[in-house]
């Protein structure tokens, strides 16, 4: 009898709290909104791309030709272009980004950190169309001059500008992890007579390793999806580039420039969505992995 009384109490207090419950439901719906959007995104992009996928299968990604007249759509040159440009960007951005992060969070005097971080943040907020614009204005002619090319719109140009856009991501994410390394460890090393650089190398970096890795993955995700700047400066040639000094086309740039002309519902239209789906899945995987890496790093 006493027990059932308590159960009743519980139920009744639940109903009393229902008074504030509608709000909880609203809040929950807002929080789950991101999940819903992601599912809708996958669904719609996949639905539009399904036609091309059933028609070409893996050739959509690995076929060598994108030809409107013969209605054959293979995206390999684009995939290659994307990977080439992204790889080049990361090769430049990783050393600069990581060393900047270390410098800002370990070496820089405290009162200078905020201003420097702010400038890096500003760099991150400059829209990609302006990066493209500046690349076109400065980097493109510079490339043509240095390498004696007829056009400075090359994979290397895109990589250079893209690295500038990726550095802030790497700096802010890995900087956060590096400054989270417990002071005790650093002091222990310093107390043993290690120099500042030895401490960073032997204590800070091993602990922050996973965070740095995650920041690189996020940087990769950002670089491979970058559209506007790349399409303005990479020359937009749908062929497999022979070198970094060749013009290239990337998947997002190709989608941006071809969507307007593709007839809605046509095979080309569907193929563009197919490429989009592949890009979406790549970034999904990379971002999820980055999260997992960070969380595992934090647990250890």
């Amino acid at each position, binding site marked *: 009898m006493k027990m059932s009384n*308590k159960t*009743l*109490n519980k139920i*009744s*207090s639940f*109903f*009393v709290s229902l*008074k504030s419950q509608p709000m909880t439901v609203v809040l929950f719906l807002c929080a789950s909104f991101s999940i819903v959007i992601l599912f809708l995104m996958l669904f719609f992009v996949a639905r539009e791309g399904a036609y091309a996928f059933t028609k070409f299968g893996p050739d959509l990604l690995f076929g060598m030709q994108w030809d409107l007249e013969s209605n054959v759509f293979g995206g390999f040159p684009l995939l290659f272009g994307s990977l080439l440009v992204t790889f080049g960007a990361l090769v430049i951005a990783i050393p600069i980004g990581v060393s900047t992060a270390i410098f800002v969070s370990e070496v820089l005097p405290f009162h200078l950190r905020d201003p420097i971080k702010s400038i890096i943040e500003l760099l991150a907020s400059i829209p990609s169309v302006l990066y493209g614009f500046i690349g076109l204005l400065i980097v493109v002619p510079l490339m043509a001059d240095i390498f004696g090319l007829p056009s400075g719109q090359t994979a290397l140009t895109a990589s250079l500008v893209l690295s500038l856009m990726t550095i802030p991501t790497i700096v802010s994410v890995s900087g956060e992890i590096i400054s989270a390394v417990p002071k005790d460890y650093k002091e222990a090393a310093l107390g043993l007579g290690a120099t500042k650089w030895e401490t960073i190398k032997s204590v800070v970096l091993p602990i922050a390793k996973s965070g740095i890795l995650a920041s690189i993955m996020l940087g990769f995700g950002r670089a491979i999806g970058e559209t506007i700047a790349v399409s303005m400066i990479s020359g937009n040639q749908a062929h497999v580039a022979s070198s970094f000094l060749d013009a290239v086309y990337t998947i997002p740039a190709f989608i941006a420039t071809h969507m307007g002309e593709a007839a809605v519902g046509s095979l080309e239209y569907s193929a563009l969505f197919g490429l989009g789906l592949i890009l979406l899945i790549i970034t999904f995987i990379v971002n999820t992995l980055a999260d997992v890496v960070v969380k595992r790093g934090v647990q250890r």
Partner: protein
Amino acid sequence: MSYEDKIDIRQLNIWFGEKHVIRGVDLKIKANAVTAIMGPSGCGKSTLLRAFNRMNDVIKTSKTTGDVFIGEKNVYENGTNVYDLRRQVGMVFQKPNPLPKSIYENVAFGPKIHKMAKGKALDKVVEKSLRSAALWDEVKDRLNDSAFDLSGGQQQRLCIARALAVDPEVILMDEPCSALDPAATAKIEQLIRILSSDYTVVIVTHNMQQASRVSDYTVFLYLGKIIEQGKTKGIFENPQHELTEQYITGEFG
């Protein structure tokens, strides 16, 4: 001088997850008197206090069995409106916790959320509450200043005024002076004595001198159980239980 019972606690048990914090407490608290709950830290004093206005409900893992009657009403009964309960049973916290608003808005907060008064009537409530908390003369010319501009002791009296503004019957105080200096503490203690003529006051403290100075009745709690309770004078002059005596003489705590 005899008092009526205001709060009647029967077989109260409280768990936080697996931890059994309050173990079968029976306790009667007299109306219009000050009752001090004292005991070493971690003995469950604050948890016991928070059972009176069901503030333990806020902690998701908490589980409560037993009854707490305030006046005629069992607060753990079906369909109790906890929000109304918390209006009737005001609470003052360990650290002064003014809201990031003006002095006036802090006191007016309770009446506003319960739609008890507005306009001129609200001004009156604010003034009356601040007077009752012995703060009016110090703040009447700067009611629109931020509450954070007040000193710690003033902030705590502001919190008391805020609790009084919703017209409570019982006031719970959870170590209200632990963050204050001796001068501010003396003022609050004096205030507690005055408040007891209109309200039932329950104060948690680990400071024995404070318990002996402000309270009419004292409850000694140890490991979630009541070891001893009675008139403050009696407990301090002639403790019945060995543990109480050890605690009062400072052998542990």
